[in-house]
Structure formats: C-alpha cells, structure tokens
C-alpha cells in the first residue's frame, strides 16, 4: 500500500520535473534548431525543415567570429584571474584581521553589484576616454572587476572564516612560514569556494553586455557584442545569429555541467554557518 503510494508520487514528481525541463530548455533547443535552418525556413513553427550547415560555415569560417571568442576569453579570463589575485588576499584580510571600518568596507565591495550597469557606464565612458582605457583589454578587465570581485571576495571570505585560526597557529608552531601555511594549509581548504565562485564570475563576465557595448569598439570585440553584427541594418540573419549565440553559450554550459555538483555545494557551504 505504502509502496504503491510512494511509486505514484515518484511518477508524478518525475512528470513535473520533465515538464519543467522542457519549459526551461525550450528556448535553448529552439535556438539550436534555428541554427540549422536556412533563412527561408526560420519562421516555420513546425519542427520540420531542411537542416543545413550553411549558417555554421558562414559564421565560423567566413567571419571574424573566432577573434570575438578570443577577445571574450581574454577579457573574461583576465578579469577572473585579476579577481583571484586581488580577491583572495582581500577575503583573507576581511576574515582574519580587525581594522576600523572593516564591515563598511566589505559592504562597499558588495555594493558594487547593486547599481545597474547602465547607470554607471556613461560616466565610466567619459573617464575611459580621458584615460585612454577606452577599447582596450585592460580597460574591460578592470571594469569587469565590478562583476567578479565582489562575488569572489564574499564567497571566499566565508570559507576563510570557517577555518579556525588555531589551524594557522598549529602550522606556525609546526615550523611553517606564512606563505607556506597559506598555500599548503589554507588554499586546499578554500578550493571548493574559490573554484565555484571563480567559475560563476567567469560566466557573469563572459555574459556581460553593457560594459563592452559602450566601453569598447573595434579593437576589443567580445562575443556578446559581436553577435549584434549578424543583425544587419536591413536584414536579420537569424540563422547566423543563432549559431553565434549557440557557440558563445557553449563554454559557460560546459563549465557549469562539469562542476555542477561542486557549484551548489561550493557556493552554499561557506554561507551556512553552524
């Protein structure tokens, strides 16, 4: 009796989950389908069409798409790298040391994420023009810190706070110098948080649109902005557009799938204090 009830409940749950999966994945699947359609068939709503690779050829071989991807990798990857180099020591300091206005500083860092990008981007544009940072890798990497740094600092700080300070003392007494302690004892302990937050930061930076749209033009062309190129002034090549989006979404998806198990645990572990 009980078994039967449980089984029917399981079936129901699975049906609901499948429904949700279809709902959530449909836009992606639709995008994938469009990428195989020719321009004439783009608007057919049935699933019947003549698949073609013409769009892929056009985008990947006959345009600068690879360069756009490379720019995105440089900018997003660089941003995460800088965030790690700056953020981990900052998180350590916020977790371990007491200094005046510590909490205010931590909140200030978090608040970078509050303002809508569009609000700050215009003043930034003027400043960047004056400083010569406009349309440069460095400029974008810098501005991406607004996105990646707060996330990384707050997650990693939680991890540092969870490590009892006596562990550092014990390692000192055991004859290790501070740098040895940091790399041998502490880094392994914060690794789950560091990896997951760095990955999330990478995805956010990769997906960023407003900043590169306004703050870069010809020399640095991240893929999010470049996709717009396939929207011509008089004609929209939806097929090519779909190819460009599909390929640009791939790295984020692959990363997320690879570490999805650690991603959730990594981000929630530090936040839940016992």
């Amino acid at each position: 009796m009980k078994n039967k009830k449980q089984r029917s409940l399981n079936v129901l749950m699975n049906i609901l989950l499948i429904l949700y999966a279809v709902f959530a994945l449909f836009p992606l699947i639709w995008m994938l389908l469009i990428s195989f359609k020719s321009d004439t068939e783009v608007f057919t709503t049935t699933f019947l069409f003549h698949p073609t690779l013409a769009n892929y050829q056009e985008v990947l071989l006959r345009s600068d798409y690879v360069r756009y991807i490379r720019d995105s990798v440089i900018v997003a990857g660089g941003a995460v790298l800088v965030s790690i180099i700056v953020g981990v020591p900052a998180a350590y300091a916020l977790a371990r040391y007491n200094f005046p206005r510590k909490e205010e500083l931590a909140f200030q860092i978090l608040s970078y994420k509050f303002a809508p990008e569009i609000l700050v981007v215009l003043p930034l544009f003027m400043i960047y023009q004056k400083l010569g940072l406009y349309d440069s890798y460095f400029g974008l990497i810098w501005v991406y810190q607004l996105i990646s740094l707060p996330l990384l600092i707050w997650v990693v700080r939680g991890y540092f706070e969870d490590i009892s300070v006596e562990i550092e003392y014990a390692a000192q007494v055991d004859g290790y110098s501070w740098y040895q302690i940091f790399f041998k004892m502490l880094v392994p302990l914060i690794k789950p948080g560091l990896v997951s937050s760095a990955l999330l930061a990478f995805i956010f930076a990769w997906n960023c649109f407003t900043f590169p749209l306004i703050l870069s033009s010809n020399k640095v062309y991240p893929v999010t902005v470049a996709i717009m190129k396939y929207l011509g002034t008089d004609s929209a090549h939806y097929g090519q557009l779909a190819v460009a989006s599909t390929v640009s979404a791939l790295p984020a998806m692959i990363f997320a799938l690879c570490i999805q198990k650690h991603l959730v645990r990594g981000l929630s572990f530090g936040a839940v204090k016992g």
Partner: protein
Amino acid sequence: MARIQLENVKKAFGKVQALDGITIDVKDKEFFVLFGPAGAGKTTILNCIAGIMMPEEGLVKFDGEIMNLTDSAHRNVAMVFENYALYPQMTVYDNMASALRSKLYKTDEAEIRERIQWAAKIMKMEKLLERLPSQLSNGQKQRVAMGRALVRNPSVFLMDEPLAHLDAKLRNSMRTELKEMQANLGSTCIYVTHDFMEAMALGDRIAIIKEGRIVQIGTGDEIYYMPCNEFTAQLMGDPEINLIDAEISGTEEAYTAKFSLNGEMVACSLPQDSGVYAKIKELGLKRVDIGIRPQHIKYSFEPQDGYFKTTVYSYESIGNKSVIVTDCGDKNHSQLRMIAPNGLRVAIDNDIYIHLEMDHAIFFGSETKDYIVRYDEANYIALAAAQEDE
C-alpha cells in the same frame, strides 16, 4: 629541552587585561601546570610562550635567551590546542608528520614513520592513521593532536587541556601515561587544565591563575595544604573546602572559636598548637574564616558530645565515596560539605550531627581572605621543602 621564563608579561585584548604581569620560571624537564578557572588567561600564557601572541610588555625567555622577537616557527615548541586544530584536508598520519616535513624540522620519511608508529601506539590509535579528521570522534581528535606534538623533539611541550575531551577511563590511563612519558623524554612541559585532579596528579609544580595574575605557585601538596588565600583553597579540592566565619575568644592558654549554626552561636575549642596560638596572639585575631576540608568533618546520626545538630541538604554518591551537604542556615556558611562512605541511608531534611576536626583547620583573614596560619604548619612547610628539592 629548555628552561622557560616569563618576566612580568602583560597582554591586553582591547580593554580586557588578559595577562597582568605574569612571572613564572619553569625549570628544565619540569612538568608545570597552569591551573585556574575558565577565562583566567591560561591559554593566553601558552600562546605567548609559543609565539602566537606578542606580549605588550615583559620578556619571554628560553634558556635565558630572550625570545620575544622570534616567530613561533623558530621557537621549536610543540603545542596541543584545546580545539585540536587538526588540518582537515590531511590524514591523521600526515597531520602528525606535518612538523617533521616542514623545511625547518626536516626529518627523513623512515624516521617519521617510526616516530608516528611509536606515538600512535602510546595514544592507542594505530588504526586511525589513514583517516581524515572529519571521521574521528572528539576524543580521537584530541589524541591525534597529542600525537602530533609527541612526535617532535621540542624545547617545550605546551598542552592546552589535552585530556578534556577523552572519556573518563582513557583520561585516567592517559594521565598516568603522560606523566611517565614526560619523565622518560626528559622534556619540559607546560600544561593547562581546569581539572583539580589532573593538576595534582601531573604537576611537579602548579601555578594558580586568576584574572591574568599568578595567585600562587608551588607543589600540589603545598598549595593544597597551605593555600595562600580562600580562592586557591576553594579551587584545590573536590568537594570544595568549607569556610566558616568565626569569632575567636579566650586567652593564650585556650582559645575558642564561636560561629553561628542554625541561628545559634556555638563554640568549638581550638586545640593547642604553638604555631596557631602564637599567630592568634601576635595578630590579636578576633574574626577569622576557618577552612576545613570535607574529609575533616565527622558526622553522626545520634547526638554526641562535641557534635552540632544540622539537617541534611543533599546526599550524592561520587563513585567510591559520597558527599553529604548539610544546611546550617547561616548567611556566610550556609552549607557544609563532608565526605561519607557509599550506601548510607540518608534522607533529605533528616537531622545529622557534625563535628569539626579543628586540628586540621586553616585560618584565613576574614577581611583580606588571605592565608594566616594552619595547624601543623611546620610539618607542611618541611614537606613542601622536601618536594621542591626532588
């Protein structure tokens, strides 16, 4: 191995003065116990010796050499932390090997293995070596923490309540083990505890700490028999010492102590003792606090000469003996504790007749709460001196 000295060490956390002028001199190869209530500053003293904390004032010396500016890695101390401080990502084996693998104390792997096996055997944890700390119980973690210190060959062992989380049986056997081990290793050891039994059993000498100050330093017996004030007397001994607020009257031939018991004043003659009588006369003592250990109160269920009537407040068995607490209705000494054998039929609120063996009394000033004199003082001074010499 080394002689450890602290000279007038002061350390404050914000407005709290954690250490307020600590001076101790731990001899080479001595087992030195820091004993005191929670929050007295015992752990802070260890941290200052280990170099984890910098005292604001005062000197830390190892073998006469000033170590204040030496970092903890170079002090060559082994410390057992109260919360174990094991490295969570390493197995028990790697935890224990960590000091011996550091650049400073590099040892070859074969010897590391040998020493870890040896320590694991003593700590009865040979089977745990491949586990991670998260897979251990608190008692096991504590043993690993001990083991991690034991594999080293440090100037001094610093142990912060290393037995507190072990179960009672293991704690007792470890206590014996530890004392013997320390004697064999010939190492200096500074040991923090708030357990009176541990302090007495282990310490060559004990320092009583209260609110960041040293109250008294001496051998266990010295402190037990001649506590320098009421605080120490209460701390040393379980059940706690009885303190009776009494008035002294009489002449130098025969003094009597009077105190109130259930609202009545009762008198108890003080037996002849040259030391005690001389002190009473010299200081012209009128009011004193008389300290009597629980084992020096006799009881009877029938009225007897020299026995005073009280009522039973509680009767509890503490293993091989029991403690009777009686109610005496006075605001200063409302309850008296005494030791009785197990298996008595004692009902709460029954009458019980008690007798105070005044010839074991310790006298404290009723205002200052400091030690004045005790019975048989010369004897105990001689005992303490003999122990110091050992």
